[in-house]
Structure formats: structure tokens, C-alpha cells
């Protein structure tokens, strides 16, 4: 009986919510994300009093995706408006999926910025590998061929004369499982990112052989993208949205508000605050531009490396696909 009432209630509520949605004026911005906290949109819109325009000119809806491929499909189908893509996925979406209308609108995180964190590739401390040359004949674990960190790893190994299949073999594993793959000796070299790279057991048993910075130098690692059509149609709302995002990012990066940042991160991820306290939004984290402006040159360099490895068919001029006008305008308003 209860069930039927609930079902009936849901059925009745549907037209109401639809009606309410239509009556609202704010532009709904649907944001795709993958990892909680590490993807900033999951924590940027949690504090209503610093979001001046949220619920007025724009509103957001967060949608979680399992990795980038379904996210690109969703962008193409118009099911999400803003997605967080690594440089590698961005290039593939433009070239292979033919999404000529994609635009980079903002920076999410950069790798290899001096004085900031860079993701390591690790081996066992007391294991057989001490130099890159020792990788010959060994097993490396990657999160997936062609992904952003995978490109960094392959590029570095190639620079040192090592080719996949000929000189080493690769297996796949998700970031959370990398530690076990290394410590249980299922792989000799692993690829890890924060927060998994600072796990105490891994820090104790593993050591860094090389880093993403060693391979790519400074790189624009993850960017916010949207479709040009959406941006042109909702310029004012997107500018407001970026203003709120930048304000919120600056607020969370401010050491004065650290306690609040940690609380939010813990609440969103359902992990203890201690899981974040050592690194998040400090110089032990990836660099995030405080104005959320991407480094287009660095982005271009990473994509060129991707292409040189044969993971992208043709060379590409990424500057054609960047539109930071709204982010710039928003940053200016905050000055």
C-alpha cells in the first residue's frame, strides 16, 4: 500500500516539478564529473552565501560519470553542458568524435607547475627497478591506454628507448587498486594520482621513479569544456556562473577557510578530513589557476606529445577551440 502511494506520489509530482522547472528563469548548467573533491565542481557550489548568482541567473546540476568516454557521448547528445576533460580526451573528442564546437572555458588543474605537486610513477623501494632502463621486460600498470597519465608514462619510457609490447607489457588497473598491484607484485611500475599516491603504505613501500613533470614538463592537465552553441546562447549566465566558481575557488583556497574546505571535502567524499588535510589546495596539490584561466600553450604541448605517440591521428591547433572570454570577464569583475 505504502509503495503504491509512493509511486502515485511520484507520478503526480512529476508534472509539478516539470512545471516548476519551466517556470524558473535561471539557466540550468549540467556539469559532468568523475571523482569527488578532486573534480572541483563537486565542492565549489556547496556554500550558498558566496554564490551570488546561483539560483538567479544560473543553476547547476551535477551528474556523475564513470570515466570520460560516456561524458563525451553526453556532451555530444546535449545531455550535459560543462564537462571536465583531460587534455587527451579533449583532443580525441574534437578529432575523432568530430566535435568541432567544443570550447575550453576554464582551467581545472595543471601538472608540473614549479613548486606544486606532480603525479608520480612508482616502483617498489626494495624492488628490482632503480632506473628507467630496468623496466625492460617488466610489467607496468596503467589506468588505460591513451589516458592523460598514460601518455605521460609512455612518452617518458619512449624517450628512454622503451616501447610497449617490445620492451615491456602493460596491464590495466584503476587508481585505487594501483597500490595493491604494486605491493602484491602484480605490476612493477604503477601510475598513481592524489590522494592514492600519498597513502601511508604506498609511501612506505614505494618510491618514485619519475613523474608526469619529468615527462611532459608543465601541462594543462584537466580543463572545463562546453559547446560553443551553449556558450553563445547563455553568455551572461555562464559569466555569472564562472564568477561564482572563481569566487568560491578563491574562498576555498584561502588558508583562513581551510577548516571549512576540509569539512566540505569530507562531507562530499564521505572520507575523513584527514584524507585531505595534508594536501588539498596547497602546494602539495596540483596547481589550480586562481582565476581559472587555462595555460593554452601548455595544453598545446601535451596534445602534441599525444599526437607524436600515435594516440592522435593528426596534428591539431587547440587555440581554435579555446574560449575563455567569459572566464576572463568574470575574473575581471572580481578584481
Amino acid at each position, binding site marked *: 500500500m505504502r509503495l503504491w502511494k509512493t509511486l502515485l506520489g511520484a507520478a503526480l509530482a512529476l508534472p509539478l516539478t516539470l512545471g516548476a522547472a519551466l517556470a524558473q528563469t535561471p539557466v540550468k548548467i549540467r556539469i559532468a564529473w568523475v571523482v569527488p573533491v578532486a573534480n572541483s565542481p563537486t565542492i565549489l557550489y556547496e556554500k550558498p552565501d558566496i554564490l551570488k548568482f546561483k539560483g538567479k541567473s544560473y543553476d547547476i546540476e551535477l551528474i556523475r560519470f564513470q570515466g*570520460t*568516454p560516456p561524458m*563525451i*557521448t553526453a556532451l*555530444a*547528445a546535449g545531455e550535459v553542458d560543462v564537462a571536465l576533460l583531460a587534455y587527451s*580526451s579533449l583532443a*580525441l*573528442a574534437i*578529432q*575523432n*568524435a*568530430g*566535435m568541432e564546437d567544443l570550447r575550453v572555458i576554464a582551467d581545472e588543474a595543471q601538472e608540473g607547475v614549479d613548486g606544486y605537486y606532480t603525479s608520480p610513477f612508482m616502483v617498489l623501494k626494495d624492488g628490482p627497478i632503480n632506473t628507467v632502463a630496468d623496466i625492460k621486460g617488466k610489467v607496468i600498470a596503467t589506468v*588505460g*591506454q*591513451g*589516458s592523460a597519465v598514460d601518455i605521460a608514462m609512455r612518452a617518458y619510457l619512449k624517450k628512454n628507448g622503451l616501447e610497449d609490447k617490445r620492451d615491456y607489457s602493460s*596491464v*590495466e*588497473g*584503476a587508481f585505487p*587498486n594501483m597500490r*595493491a*598491484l604494486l605491493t*602484491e607484485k*602484480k605490476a612493477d611500475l604503477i601510475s598513481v594520482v592524489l590522494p592514492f599516491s600519498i597513502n601511508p603504505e604506498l609511501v612506505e613501500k614505494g618510491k618514485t621513479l619519475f613523474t608526469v613533470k619529468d615527462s611532459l614538463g608543465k601541462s594543462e592537465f584537466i580543463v572545463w569544456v562546453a559547446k560553443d552553441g551553449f556558450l553563445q546562447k547563455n553568455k551572461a549566465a555562464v559569466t555569472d556562473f564562472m564568477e561564482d566558481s572563481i569566487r568560491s575557488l578563491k574562498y576555498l583556497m584561502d588558508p583562513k577557510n581551510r577548516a571549512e574546505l576540509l569539512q566540505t571535502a569530507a562531507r562530499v567524499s564521505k572520507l575523513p578530513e584527514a584524507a585531505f588535510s595534508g594536501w588539498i589546495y596547497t602546494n602539495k596539490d596540483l596547481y589550480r589557476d586562481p582565476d581559472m584561466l587555462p595555460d593554452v600553450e601548455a595544453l598545446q604541448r601535451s596534445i602534441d606529445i599525444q599526437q607524436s605517440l600515435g*594516440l592522435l591521428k593528426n596534428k591539431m591547433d587547440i587555440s581554435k577551440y579555446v574560449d575563455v572570454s567569459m572566464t576572463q570577464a568574470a575574473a575581471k569583475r572580481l578584481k
Partner: protein
Amino acid sequence: MARINQGGAPMASPEHDSGQLPHFVRSFGWGVVAWLPVIILLVAWEVVARSGTVTPFMLPTLTRVFERMGSELVSGELPIAVGLTLWRALAGFVIAAVLGIALGLAMARNRFFYWFFDPIISVGFPIPKIAFLPILVLWLGFFDLSKITMIAFNTIFPVVTATIVGVYSVEKEIIWSARNLGTSERGMLWEILLPAAMPQIFTGLQVALPIALIVGVLTEMAMGGYGVGGSMQTASRMADSLGVFAGIFEIAVVGYVMVKLMAMLRRHLLRWHQESQEPTTV
């Protein structure tokens, strides 16, 4: 076994309406009708894909998907991928079938087995087993062993439940009279219970086989490497939707053939049963 005259059989119908036509015309005609929904679906696909309402990335035309499959066939990628996926799915299926039937029989005949496994089946069947994949990888490595184990682990449940239902539905009279005739417990199993439960067990196998294929593909997608699932995963990472759709078509064809062969096997093995008086489809 002779086909029984269908004069008054209620199952009869279309065959009688077109009784005058030669057999091959009738079967050809039904063949077309049978495939009509599939043909309509494919035509609709092609029309939507060509209409320009969706991008080729979202829905490539069938022609291009078939071209892609053709070139993969020529290059040898397709047979290798399909062969590997099929081998893993079938290996997992056979393990699940043998263990599943054995466990089902044991549970149906032995109170201890029933007590022990009944709640475990109830909890194990609906649990999302993909969560345990990292554990299997650590134990069994990255290759066939962990994939096949995962397939068997998912596939065994419908076989067990079907076997139990099968044995329970054997009529008590048959068991009593067999026992009165002095049949041993062993003979009872092989000569009475297993054959009598066979239709239901086979239903379980028919349900399990496609699950084996599905889990095989999903495991390959999650773990990478060769196989249809692995190729689909690589293709989708490269935003190469042709590769993804080619994979879907390959699984559809392989799956259809497997389901069909299973139905034929059913018909062959259950020749003696009621149902075989008509060709088995599903």
C-alpha cells in the same frame, strides 16, 4: 518419435492457412516475417543516422559500421577478438553449468547442502559481483583465469536455481514407484531425476549462456586486453564510436548464434519431451 497428427491440436494455426503452398515458400515467407522487426529497426537506424539529426559520432551509419567490421575481419582483429571472448564465455559457462547442476542436485537431494547453500544463493545471486573484480585480479592475475572465474561466478546462479526447481517438480509418484522397484539412490539420480528435471535445467542453461557472454564482455571492458570487450573499451576511449558499434554488432551476431545453437541442442536432447513436437525457438 513420430510427429503427432496436428488435426485437432490447438497449437496449429498459420501452417494450416497456407497449407497449399510448397514448404520452402512457407518457410521463406515466415523467415521474412520473423526478421521484419529486426529489418525495420536496422532501416530506422540507417534513416536516423543519415538524417543529420545526430552526429556520426553519436550514431554512425550501418554501412560504415559494416565496413569497419569488414576491415577488422580482413585484418584478422575481429576473428581474434571474437574467438577470445567466445572462449572465455564458453569456458566460464561450462564450468558454471557443471558445478551449477551438481550443486543444484546436491541441494535438492541433501538437507545439509540445502541448509548451507540456500541462503548463500539468495545473497550471492543479486550481489553486484563486479565489485569483487579487483580481488580476483590480485588472486588470479590479469588474464583468462580471472576473467573466466568472474564469468563462472556470475553464471552459476541461474543454473543452480533452475536445477533445484527441476528436481522438485519431478512428480512424487515417479520417485515412489522407482523406489518401490528398488532403484538405488545413484540410479535414481542418473536415470530418473536428471532426465526428468532436464527441461528446467536446460531453461537455466539457456538463461545462463547469454549472461556468460555479457559478463565476459563487461569483464574485458573493465580489465582491458584483447577480446571484443577490450576492443570496445579502447575504441570508446579513443572516441571511436565506429569501433564501439562494431563491437555491439559482433556480440549481437555471436550471441544470436549461441542462443540459437542452445535452442537446437535443447530440441535435440529433449526429443522425448512434449515440447519438442514443435520447433523450439527462443
